[in-house]
């Protein structure tokens, strides 16, 4: 038992240790290699890093819950794009124009509702048909992307609302708006997963679905709620990001699902379900962004970041396996 808690502690702490190593490495390497004078650990630089982590980060938080459930969602990138289009386009609708600044919360509401509806469609299909979530959301990924193109063809959708831009660029207590949303979402979801029945059920279902059913947990509605939640979060991520940028291309958000899954896995959440933590995912998100920024800082090509992240992901998987191996008799092959 004591060993188990220690192993758990190592796992929970691993991602933060990794972040510290990254910080140390890039700070020291930056001294010798960097072309700029500013230090890597510069305060503003770190604040920017948190802000840039927000779009993928908010999605990754939702993906954590989906994966703890033993499911996966590949459609988040397309949901992200569609919510962004609804956000920007709805502000140009005639009746919205008459509302002045009240159009903003309404546009947010429309965008978030879009995300929830798209999530609900995937969740309902997973629940009612019993088709694996991987396949359902692979299909949704294509279908939702089709809806994105249907909206405005291959043209970008643009609308700049300066009040909104000011809000998105604002800094409160030093942190950017996007960072606040990331941290806020992380805290709420952490509470949800650790302090509520819904959270405990999520772990139970991921651990052993049959046992959960026998224990009287209604698995189907539970799935539905979680898919609605990740749809909401994908839309929230879009709302936060596009409030500032004001223009969305129909291809935006592509491969976001893969980045989000990468962050979640780096944070130690198991694909097979039943194990994972919101806070560790936050660590995974920050670790990836740190790597991205750090490699840029020491003058490496931005392209190499893909190579490094891919290899780190595999290395993490390998180490995790070695850690778990103890005590488990493996079938020799």
């Amino acid at each position, binding site marked *: 038992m004591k060993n188990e808690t220690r192993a758990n502690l190592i796992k929970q702490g691993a991602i933060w240790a990794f972040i510290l190593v990254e910080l140390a490495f890039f700070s020291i390497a930056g001294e010798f290699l960097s072309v700029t004078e500013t230090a890597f650990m510069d305060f503003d630089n770190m604040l920017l890093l948190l802000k840039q982590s927000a779009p993928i980060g908010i999605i990754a938080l939702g993906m954590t819950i989906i994966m703890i459930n033993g499911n996966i969602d*590949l459609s988040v990138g397309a949901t992200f794009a569609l919510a962004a289009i609804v956000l920007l386009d709805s502000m140009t609708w005639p009746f919205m124009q008459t509302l002045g600044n009240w159009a903003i919360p309404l546009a947010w509401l429309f965008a978030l509702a879009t995300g929830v509806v798209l999530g609900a469609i995937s969740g309902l*299909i997973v*629940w*009612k*048909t*019993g*088709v*694996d979530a*991987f*396949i*359902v959301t*692979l*299909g*949704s*990924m*294509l*279908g*939702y*992307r*089709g*809806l*994105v*193109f*249907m909206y405005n*063809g291959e043209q970008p959708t643009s609308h700049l609302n300066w009040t909104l831009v000011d809000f998105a660029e604002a800094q409160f207590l030093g942190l950017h708006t996007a960072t606040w949303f990331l941290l806020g979402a992380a805290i709420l979801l952490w509470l949800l997963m650790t302090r509520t029945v819904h959270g405990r059920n999520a772990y139970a279902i991921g651990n052993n679905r049959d046992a959960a*059913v026998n224990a009287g*947990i*209604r*698995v*189907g509605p539970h*799935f539905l709620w979680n898919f609605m939640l990740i749809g909401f979060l994908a839309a929230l991520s879009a709302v936060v990001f596009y409030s500032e940028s004001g223009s969305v291309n129909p291809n935006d958000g*592509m*491969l976001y699902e*893969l980045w989000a*899954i*990468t962050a979640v*896995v780096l944070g130690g959440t198991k*694909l097979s379900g039943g194990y994972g933590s919101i806070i560790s995912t936050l660590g995974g998100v920050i670790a990836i962004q740190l790597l991205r920024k750090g490699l840029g800082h020491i003058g490496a*090509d931005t*392209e*190499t*970041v*893909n*190579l*490094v*992240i*891919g*290899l*780190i*992901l*595999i290395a993490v*998987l*390998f180490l995790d*396996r070695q850690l778990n191996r103890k005590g488990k008799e493996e*079938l020799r*092959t």
Partner: protein
Amino acid sequence: MAELTRKGLQGFLARQGILVAFAVFMIAFAVANPRFIDIDNVFGVIRSSAILGVMALGVTFVVIGGNLDLSVGSMMSFSTIVVLDLHDKIGPTLAIPSMFAMTLALGAFIGILVGYLKLNSLIVTLGMLSAIHGLTLTYSGGKNMDIADKSGTWFSVFGQGSVAGLPMPILIFAGLAIVLSIILSRTPFGRKVYAVGGNGVAATFSGIPRARVVFMTYLMSSFCVATAGLIQASRSLGSQNTVGQGMELEVLAAVILGGASLLGGSGTIFKTVIGVLILGFIQNGLLLLGLAFYAQYIVTWIIIILAVWLDIAAKRGGLWSRIA
């Protein structure tokens, strides 16, 4: 008696549903627009599906073996870029085998990770998707790759040539499909792939070297990817770094549409070919009907889910899932 025929019909639909759907689509599109079954159009569709198709053939092996391969898209970009680059440096005769060797090495690397080290294939190939993409960009320096002398090289034969009126990509696709189909259904290795994917533990106990079989499926997948990259490079004689981006999921969609279960142990090369053709012909048919290109995304979405749903429904004997 009536009961019997109904059962028989259901069974037939469950087993051959994808073929029936294919036939229905073809007839419906042909009625809607006669140009659809025009021989030039049919060849055009198969030709443009060939690259996706060749990749899907390899992924079929991986999926039957009970694993996933999400890296084929970026691996295809890699082989395309490499063969185009080497073409001007060492000539096509040497460039092609070098490219195959490099792509097979990547496949072998994945095979070792998933087969021998038994790591989760989804995450490994997700990682490789990213890593190979980075490798390609590093290799090319982020620039597009072009062959200097486009008209004076025989290299274009794989993508643009034709034999006896049949375009080369179709011949490669068909030839590879036949060879791989024989390997999968007529050789001990093929049976081992099914055994490993169907029940890995049972396969191990019956003395099948599970690790080596999985390793081989990834090697075959990367061979197919290299072939697809060769066709792609030869067809356009120039390429972006991201030519294969997103194809991994399209390939997977074709394989699933063909009825291969993601849990492993089922699927055939023939059905994958049908899955590839359905995707290609739907895309073409919808365009001929005058619908915008994005209509295919929505139709594909519906078809994939319906296909898998009906397959599952036939197996459990009820349309709706029993999840509470």
